[in-house]
């Protein structure tokens, strides 16, 4: 027995030594290549190189699939393209006339009267909308034309070739075995540092030193988090970056939006106080610089919210507020109606457009489908998150517009810049219902066709 133990001990030692060495090397590399650049805000360009390589790989993979599908005569499920998804709107009158024309050869230029067949028009439109409607399209993830080696984003995935499957398997290994642990480590480091350092800074007396340090700490921690997601961000028009006393307004696709914006500038966050880890982070952040956190009960009180926001904005030493007016996450193909609250305050608005490149990983958070943790895991096991941020020139409310018009103007500017479709609809519709006023429009159109407008009738 003792000879056996002699045999194992040196071996044990060797394993321990090797483990120790590799861990040290690992952490040193981490420090040098990721954390130190994050602190100083510089970049080695590793991520961009990584991105270029990935793109070439995806192109190859897509070609292989298309070739394979052609060879095997598989019907490729081709999703609709990135173009605007809206159907050609035909007027109610045209369509009903079309239905009637096919039914009878009566002269249709005479005043049209009600026909029992008219119901076909409404029935068909109704069922069409059950199959496929404009708004719900925005809430499901965008469908891609190329394949990015993630099975979750591809509906065509079946066995095409050995090489492709091997590549996919390799990708799986790299993503879950190497990238995921790395990123999780970074994420914990980033968040941990944020909490710890902001608490430290909170001990300092208010003044220039505190603000300066707070800025540096926030930026550093967000940059680490950016690297934790392997986010490759391109900022455009940085001369328009939001200034103190203003409100920064952006379209919302995922909780990551916050990290993306906050790693390039300092903002005051607005939101509800949560419990758990999120709450801890929020409470420590507010020690270092003033953020606007609301208790759950206060959120419903619009006046209170508006008052706190406008108080913050008037104090020019405080940071610009970051707000996502859509109120919920949209799938990054369009911009939904902005809630008017933030546009009512009278501060300068700095619009920002964020557009994610879906080729690398879908950043959209469908909160009704996935929880937060699930979502973050998906993000961290994707290849990368590539996005572009455009800082648009500041806008102010004009004398003759009200808050809603101003909000729509800002929304249009953001949609135009980001190449997103400008939808005049309420993001809350993902969960809610429709107002009755819209039904009236259809009724008006139909009755106009049958009996003319009230003016016509009163004239006759």
């Amino acid at each position, binding site marked *: 027995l003792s000879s056996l133990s002699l045999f194992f001990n040196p071996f044990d030692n060797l394993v321990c030594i090797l483990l120790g060495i590799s861990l040290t090397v690992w952490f040193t590399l981490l420090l040098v290549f990721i954390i130190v650049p994050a602190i100083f805000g510089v970049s080695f360009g590793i991520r961009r190189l990584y991105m270029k390589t990935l793109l070439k790989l995806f192109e190859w993979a897509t070609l292989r699939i298309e070739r394979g599908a052609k060879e095997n005569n598989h*019907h490729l*499920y081709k999703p609709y393209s990135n173009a605007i998804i809206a159907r050609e709107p035909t007027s109610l009158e045209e369509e009903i006339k*079309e*239905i*009637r024309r*096919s*039914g*009878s050869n009566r002269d249709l230029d005479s005043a049209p*009267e*009600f*026909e*029992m*067949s*008219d*119901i*076909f028009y*409404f*029935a*068909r*439109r*109704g*069922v*069409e*909308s*059950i*199959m*496929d*409607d*404009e*708004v*719900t399209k925005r*809430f*499901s993830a965008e469908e891609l034309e190329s394949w990015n080696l993630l099975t979750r984003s591809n*509906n065509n995935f079946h066995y095409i070739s050995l090489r492709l499957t091997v590549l996919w398997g390799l990708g799986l290994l790299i993503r879950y075995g190497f990238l995921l642990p790395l990123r999780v480590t970074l994420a914990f480091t980033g968040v941990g540092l944020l909490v710890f350092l902001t608490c430290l800074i909170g001990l300092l007396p208010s003044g220039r030193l505190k603000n300066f340090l707070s800025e540096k700490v926030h930026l550093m921690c967000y940059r680490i988090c950016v690297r934790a997601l392997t986010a490759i961000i391109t900022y455009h028009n940085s001369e328009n970056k939001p200034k103190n006393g203003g409100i920064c307004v952006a379209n919302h696709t995922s909780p990551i939006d916050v990290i993306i914006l906050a790693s390039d500038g300092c903002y005051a966050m607005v939101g509800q106080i949560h419990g758990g880890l999120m709450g801890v982070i929020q409470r420590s952040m507010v020690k270092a610089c003033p953020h606007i956190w609301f208790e759950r009960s206060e959120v419903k009180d619009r006046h209170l919210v508006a008052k706190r926001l406008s108080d913050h904005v008037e104090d020019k030493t405080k940071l610009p507020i970051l707000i996502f007016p859509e109120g919920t996450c949209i799938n990054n193909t369009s911009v939904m109606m902005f809630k008017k609250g933030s546009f009512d305050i009278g501060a300068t608005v700095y619009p920002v457009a964020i557009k994610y490149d879906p080729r690398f990983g879908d950043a959209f958070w469908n909160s*009704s*489908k996935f929880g937060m943790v699930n979502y973050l895991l998906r993000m961290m096991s994707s290849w990368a998150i590539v996005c572009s941020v455009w800082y648009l020139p500041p806008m102010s409310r004009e004398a003759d517009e009200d808050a809603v018009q101003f909000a729509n103007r800002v929304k249009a500017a953001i949609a135009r810049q980001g190449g997103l479709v400008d939808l005049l*609809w309420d993001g809350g*519709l*993902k*969960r*809610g*219902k*429709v107002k009755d006023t*819209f*039904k*009236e*429009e*259809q*009724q*008006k159109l*139909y*009755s*106009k066709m*049958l*009996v003319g407008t009230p003016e016509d009738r009163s004239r006759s």
Partner: protein
Amino acid sequence: AVGPKGIFRVIERSEQWSVGELEPEDFGAIRELSMNPIGDRIISAFFSPGKETVDFASFVRILAHFHPTETSRSRDGVQPEPANSRTRKLKFAFQLYDQDRDGKISREELLQVLRTMLEMQVTEEQLQSIAERAIQEADLDQDDAISFDEFRKVRGVDLIRDQIDNWEY
């Protein structure tokens, strides 16, 4: 047509609703349907009388009405009528009128449909006269109601050949 893309969407939808069965309220999230004057009637067409939920299979079965009619198919008297036959489509439309499913469209039922399609835009007298004219034209056996056979023969309905045959979402 309810092809691969369509089925995929339907499945995604039912996952989104993430329940085994649908209730009428679930359709409420569809904006265009709520804007449709007869939206409520279309929704109730999915639910059997007395039932408050519809399961996925029945849901798809009803949608299958909207597959284009295959007119070239040889008629085999023994086979059950396919879901998308012209008769089935006409029956679907008929039932949008005939809400109590008694096989006849009564004057009151016709008025109700007209009311939902026109609501505040016309007067009650105008509604009555429109309904009166429609019944007089369609009611062949003079029983003051429109049966399914009479419905099929109504001018406009009888000849909507192309429209119905190519009727797809």
